[in-house]
Each structure stands twice: as structure tokens, then as C-alpha cells.
């Protein structure tokens, strides 16, 4: 069965639901006193993991679309990508509001001094740029540069789990799994890129730019 626009609509609604449910759950958990009397770290971690999970999901869409020949699936990526940005924003807001308690000077000091915060902040800059250029009108205006910019999502895909790994005291198993997943997803694309390059060797430069790494 080929997915049609109607299906995509439902799929998008489902993705909205999947993305919003954890936030509702978080509010209930915190309100209900189910995550300890001081859930600051919990909230920061929860929203950060939310962003990471959404990022994994957006990066899984195109291999899935290719494997099952469901090109229409690609239409859902912007929605999920914007949720990555939304969760990352909540993550940073909770860090600033609940942990640093709006000590902007401390935030600045941490951003310039702590490698894991720098890596996180850089990733957020990327996500921010991708979010604000996600409108179709902007995309048309940007032309080829749009794809070049949006390929930086792969940089974020590596930086974000590294930020996670670097932030923990000793619980490195979970972040290591995320690093492995991201490397796997990138490897899939590198394979594709290599294929594209060999196929179109005579005009590779032009073709690669025009057929983006997806």
C-alpha cells in the first residue's frame, strides 16, 4: 500500500500525540509528587531525552521511506524536527529556570567554560536555525543553500549524544547507546552518499549538491 495524503494527515496527528503525551505525563508526574520532592534534574533530563528521541525519529524517517518506498513519509519530518526544537527549548529553559535560577552570568560562564555545555549550545544553535528556516517560503527563497544548512542536522545528531555522554557523572550506558544509534543512522546515509557519488561520477559535484544526503 502506498501512503496517500490522507494517511499522512493521520500519521501527523499520531506524531503530534506521541510528542505531546510525554509533556502531559511530565506535568502529571511532577504535580503528583511522583518524581521526588525536587525534580529539577529529572525535568532537565526528561526534556533533553525527549529532544534526542525526536531527533532519532526524524533521522529514521528517510531510511524507512526509502526501504518501504513510501516517499510521502518525508512530509512528516518537518513536524518531528520542530518537536526536536521544542523539546530542546524546554530542556534549556528548565536548565536556566530551575537549575541556574536565571543567573545569566553563570549561564554565560558555563557556556564559555564547559565543553559539554558548549556542545549542547552549539547543537541548539543548529536546531534553532533549522527551525526558523523550516517554512516552505523560506525554503524556496534559500534554494540550494537550504539543503546545505539542513544537512547540519547530522552535526547536531553527533553533538547531542556527545553532550549527553559528557554531562553524566558515571551512567554512560544510555548515552553510549544513543551515540551508537546516531552513528548507525549516519552510516546508512554515508553508504547512500557513496553510491550517489559512484553513480554520478562524471558530474558528481553538481549531482551531490542537488540530490541531498537523505
Amino acid at each position, binding site marked *: 500500500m502506498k501512503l496517500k495524503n490522507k494517511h499522512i494527515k493521520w500519521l501527523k496527528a499520531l506524531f503530534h500525540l506521541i510528542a505531546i503525551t510525554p509533556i502531559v505525563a511530565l506535568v502529571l508526574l511532577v504535580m503528583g509528587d511522583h518524581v*521526588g520532592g*525536587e525534580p529539577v534534574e529529572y525535568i532537565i533530563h526528561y526534556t533533553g531525552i525527549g529532544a534526542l528521541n525526536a531527533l532519532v525519529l526524524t533521522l529514521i524517517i528517510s531510511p524507512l521511506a526509502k526501504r518501504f518506498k513510501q516517499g510521502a513519509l518525508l512530509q512528516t519530518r518537518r513536524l518531528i524536527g520542530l518537536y526536536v526544537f521544542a523539546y530542546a527549548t524546554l530542556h534549556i529553559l528548565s536548565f536556566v529556570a530551575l537549575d541556574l535560577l536565571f543567573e545569566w552570568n553563570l549561564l554565560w560562564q558555563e557556556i564559555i567554560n564547559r565543553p559539554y555545555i558548549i556542545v549542547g549550545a552549539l547543537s541548539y544553535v543548529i536546531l534553532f536555525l533549522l527551525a526558523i528556516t523550516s517554512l516552505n517560503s523560506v525554503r524556496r527563497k534559500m534554494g540550494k543553500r537550504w539543503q546545505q544548512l539542513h544537512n547540519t542536522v547530522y552535526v547536531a545528531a553527533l553533538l547531542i549524544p556527545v553532550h549527553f555522554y559528557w554531562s553524566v557523572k558515571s551512567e554512560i550506558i544510555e548515552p553510549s547507546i544513543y551515540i551508537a544509534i546516531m552513528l548507525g543512522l549516519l552510516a546508512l546515509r554515508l553508504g547512500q552518499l557513496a553510491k550517489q557519488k559512484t553513480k554520478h561520477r562524471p558530474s558528481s559535484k553538481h549531482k551531490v549538491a542537488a540530490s541531498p544526503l537523505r
Partner: protein
Amino acid sequence: MSHKFSKGIINKAWQINDNEVTPEPIFQDRRNIIKALGFGALGAALPTTSHAGIFDLFKDKKAASQFTTTPLSFISNEAFTAQDPLTPINKVTSHNNFYEFGTSKHDPVDNAQGFIVKPWQLIIDGEVDTPLTLDYDDLTKMIALEERTYRLRCVEAWSMVIPWTGFTLTSLLKKAGVKNGATHVAFETLYDPKQMPGQRNRRVGGGVAYPYVEGLTINEALNDLTFLAVGLYGKTLPPQNGAPIRLVVPWKYGFKSIKSVVRITVTKRQPATSWNKLAANEYGFYANVNPQVDHPRWSQASERRIGAGGLFSAKRIPTQMFNGYGEQVASLYQGLDLRKHF
């Protein structure tokens, strides 16, 4: 500012003004948190029955019956009565680092309620005249108990103010008699993978090599501040806070204050310590609170003080050298480069 409790001594930097003290706070109800989060309207809009229904989803976590704590008799040590406002008991007992029960702050309260402390055995051995074995009742009866309110500064840059009940380590070591030539004291937490999921499973336990071990120099151990707590807020310790007996070293980062101690060994060499074994570049043997020496990955210059109230009520305050206990302990480190020996 009242000097009622300072017994004619001038108020010291580490003393907390007693007019800032809040009485033992009433267990904070859900409404306060809702309000603090700004979800008041949302909460009010939901009928109570639907509340119950939704919260039932998460009920399994609370299903385990609560560990029972019992009141202790003690005298209040007036040199250490409350200074800063106390951290409410519900936060002291639901925001813990005790990786043996999981690495999340709320894992210990969720996972430790079935912890068995009776019977218990605490062995004091090594370079002592008379090795001792204390059983559960000895912990609260062998030495007269006192209450002391100390600041607790976690290496993760948050802090609490907690009224502990217990006795000084030095009073216990005196009973055993420390031999000449002893240089250090080593401590060990219970190793019982059946009871402690973090010891069974590397992922749950955060990759720490168990049993958890800690250590002090002999002079640190004999310092009057170094405390063995058997209770908090006037009652025996709940398991998540290190029942039935734990160390409290208020001028050092919290991870030095080892929980659920089964062995105290006086030695002639510096013992291994758990976090130092795990990451020597981040956690030194001394681990004195020091706002000038940052953790490699975060600043130690300030701390988030956890007090009463909702999520946004915490305060960021400057961290004090030796957590404000320099008057009692700074002399222990004369001539020592605290940047090198962090």
C-alpha cells in the same frame, strides 16, 4: 539577630541565625507544587476524580509500603542549631544520591523502602586497641545522641540544611582506641546485591564498583564536626538517607558522607574511595567544598539551595570555602595545595 544559642561566643560564619529558622515544615502537599508550577488553573479545572484516575497510572511506584522510622531521644547541640532555613523533610527524603538504589534522585525513595536494617552489624577494626562490633541497638544506645544541623553541599552544586541525630565519629573511635601511627580511616557501605538493585546491575548502579568505599585522614576523622548520623528530623534514618547509620562530613562534598556503613577501619595508609576510583581527575580524595576549584565540567562557585516551596523557590547562593566550616577545619589543611589536592 539573636545570640541565644551561641553561649556567649561571637556568632561564627558557619552559624545560622535562629530567626531565619522555619519550624519543621509540614509535608508539602500537591497543591503547592501545582501552584508553584503555575498550573493552578489547570489543576482546578480537572475534577478530583479524574486526578485520581490519572495518578493511578503512576501508582505502582508508590505501592511499596513505607519504611518505618522511629523517634529518637537526643539532646540538641546548641553550637549547631539551625542557621539557614531547614530543607523540608520531604525533600531531604525524596532527593537522594544513593546509586545502590538507582541513579535518579527519586530512585532511592522509590526502591529502598523494603531495605532491612535489623539486624545490622557495624565493625570497627584495624589500628585500634579494641575492635568493636555494634549491632542495631548499639547504634542508638551505645553513645548519647545529639542533634546537629549541618549544611550538606553536593558535588553537583545543590545543597540542603539538615538536622541530623547521631554522635561524633571521634566518640566512637575513642571507645575503640586509635593506635599510634594510624593515618587514615576507611569506610564501607553494605554490599548486598539482593537488596540493592544498583549492585546487581551495572546500568542501575551507574557503573560504580561496589561496595561503595570512602575515607578520611585520621585528623579529619577525629575532628569534632565529623558525625555519624543515625537519624534526621528526630527520627531514625530512612533507607534512602543511609539507614541505619551514615557518615556526615559537612565541609566535604556529599559523596564523602558514606551511607549504610558496615565497616570502619583505622589504617596506616590512604584508602581507596569510590568516586576517585571512577574518575580521579574529577573527584579527589579530599573533596573539600571549595568554590575556587571547579569540577572539570561545572562551576562550584555557587549552589542551588533547596528549601521549602515549589520548583522556582530554590535560591542560588555563593558556595563558601569548606562549606562555611573553615573555622573548625581549615587548620587541617595548612600547607596543602588545595588546587592539587582537591
